[in-house]
């Protein structure tokens, strides 16, 4: 997709600069990048995510000017930001809500990619870089949630670092090395702060690779066929910058609704209690964006197996491009598989619902004793993995797909795009 340059410097100063450092040329070519003309609003989430990362970095750098990573002061320093620091009441919730908005956008972006087959040849690496960004986001989100040093922060950190303790033989030493002591304490908080500050820049670098890759192989589109002529594409600017701008405005309205009216709706009341190593809150749950994985972790009675399944749920995403054997990319032309995908989506929500509840409580009142959340999450976990193996590879072989349009332009003009 990286064709020859269309930039023509008009003024002497531009020509002078272009000869020495073609930075304007690079920007112009970057923004004029030919994009399929049939991209819908689901394709706006790349732009939304870039904005989310920028919001988190800017507010994060500001918060770091006022925050103190010390077990005795951390909790108060966050409260001080919210009460005493000028506009701290605004900046701290933007950062906290921003994390949730970032994950909301990334989940939509990922499901979009899964529905339209955006991970297929030649976009495997683009997808894998995306998975790495998602992993780095999860690490950053977890580290950041520890910093306010409330009850959920402390016990979340204890449970998650406990995963490493489950590794045979080296587990305990590894866990102590990660914590810098026998349990979660001041050394843990300080290193978590340091790494929480570092990782967003790693994410930014990966985003750079992600965008480079998408510019090299070109964007996928809702009908999943490659642009064949110049007519099939539009320059990214102004067409998609404007479309993205509108989507960003709508997204920011939802963002603002949470920041101004529901700043604590996505958090937990327990985190307004100071961390107390002597008392575990009666009901500890992670942030909403980790709930499906938490449900998978608890679905099995074995500690190590639970952890393996939970990490497996993420690892399987990395090999998705090779598990889906279908030649046709978009689910629009896959009449049966699209239903399997929709069930997969529903199962992810069900897992989230299970993760938010106690495993032994009754989820569905059927039968004599009712069905507990543990059993619902077992069924949903089974489907989660079954979608990747065997549903996707087998459907790729046996499904009769619908005819794919000849070109993007033809599909657009006939109203099928």
């Amino acid at each position, binding site marked *: 997709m990286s064709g020859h340059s269309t930039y023509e410097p008009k003024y002497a100063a531009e020509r002078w600069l272009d000869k020495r450092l073609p930075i304007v040329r690079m920007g112009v070519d970057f923004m004029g990048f030919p994009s399929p003309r049939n991209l819908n609003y689901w394709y706006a989430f790349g732009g939304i995510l870039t904005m989310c990362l920028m919001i988190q970095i800017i507010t994060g750098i500001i918060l770091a000017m006022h925050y103190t990573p010390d077990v005795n002061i951390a909790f108060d320093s966050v409260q001080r930001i919210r009460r005493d620091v000028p506009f701290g009441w605004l900046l701290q919730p933007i950062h906290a809500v921003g994390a949730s908005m970032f994950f909301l956008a990334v989940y939509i972006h990922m499901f979009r990619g899964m529905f339209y087959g955006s991970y297929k040849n030649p976009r495997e690496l683009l997808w894998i870089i995306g998975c790495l960004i998602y992993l780095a986001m999860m690490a950053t989100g977890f580290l950041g949630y520890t910093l306010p040093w409330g009850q959920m922060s402390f016990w979340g950190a204890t449970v998650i670092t406990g995963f490493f303790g489950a590794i045979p033989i080296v587990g305990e030493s590894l866990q102590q090395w990660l914590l810098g002591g026998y349990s979660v304490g001041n050394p843990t908080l300080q290193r978590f702060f340091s790494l929480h500050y570092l990782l967003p820049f790693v994410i930014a670098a990966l985003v750079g690779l992600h965008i480079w890759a998408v510019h090299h192989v070109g964007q996928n589109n809702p009908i999943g066929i490659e642009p064949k002529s110049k007519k099939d594409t539009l320059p990214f600017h102004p067409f998609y910058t404007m479309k993205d701008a509108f989507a960003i405005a709508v997204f920011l309205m939802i963002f603002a609704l949470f920041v101004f009216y529901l700043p604590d709706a996505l958090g937990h009341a327990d985190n307004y209690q100071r961390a107390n190593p002597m008392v575990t809150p009666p009901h*500890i749950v992670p942030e909403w964006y980790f709930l499906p994985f938490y449900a998978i972790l608890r679905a099995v009675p074995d*500690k190590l197996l639970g952890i393996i399944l939970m990490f497996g749920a993420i690892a399987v995403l990395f090999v998705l491009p090779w598990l889906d054997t279908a030649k046709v990319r978009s689910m629009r032309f896959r009449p049966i598989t699209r239903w399997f995908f929709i069930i997969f989506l529903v199962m992810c929500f069900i897992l989230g619902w299970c993760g938010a509840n106690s495993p032994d409580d009754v989820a569905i009142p059927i039968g004599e004793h009712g069905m507990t959340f543990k059993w619902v999450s077992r069924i949903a976990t089974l489907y989660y993995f079954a979608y990747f193996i065997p549903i996707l590879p087998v459907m790729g072989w046996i499904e009769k797909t619908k005819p794919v349009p000849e070109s993007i332009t033809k599909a657009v003009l006939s109203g099928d795009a």
Partner: protein
Amino acid sequence: MSDTDKFDENGEPTRRDFIYIATGAAAAVGVGAVAWPLVSQMGAAADTRAAGSIEIDLSKVSEGQQLKVLWRGKPVFVRYRTQKEIDAADAVDVATLRDPQADDDRFVANPEGKINKNLLVMVGVCTHFGCIPVGEAGDFDGWYCPCHGSHYDTSGRIRKGPAPLNMEIPKYAYISDTVIKVG
């Protein structure tokens, strides 16, 4: 370097190959020597390790009570068990346990060489993911972990739920009739 350079006329590796390998090996050792402090600094610091032992006065606990003392950032439970709880712990068939251990093996002998089955001393941390179990709760009236639903009996042994092991008995010793040193 072409293939012919790899051996001299006698078919032996050349001096130059030796120098390359030796240089590479020295560089690898150097990188390792620099990386070691960078990795090692994350472990427990000397002051953290130094604060690793405490003394507990057991005479403060009376029957049916539980004392919680912070040790290495984790609570140590000192539970003065009732006769009913001791009987319940003794009545269990050890072979049926997930982490088989007799109740008697969960105590340290006092200076007279006897164990006091009334005073159970253990690390009050669930062996699943490190939450603090709630006392006098669960299906076995021992401890119950609220995080992921592990049930422990009156001896702190795992009986039901996801935790793999019994709650840990810390290393401790009686330094007088009523005072123990943990760690």
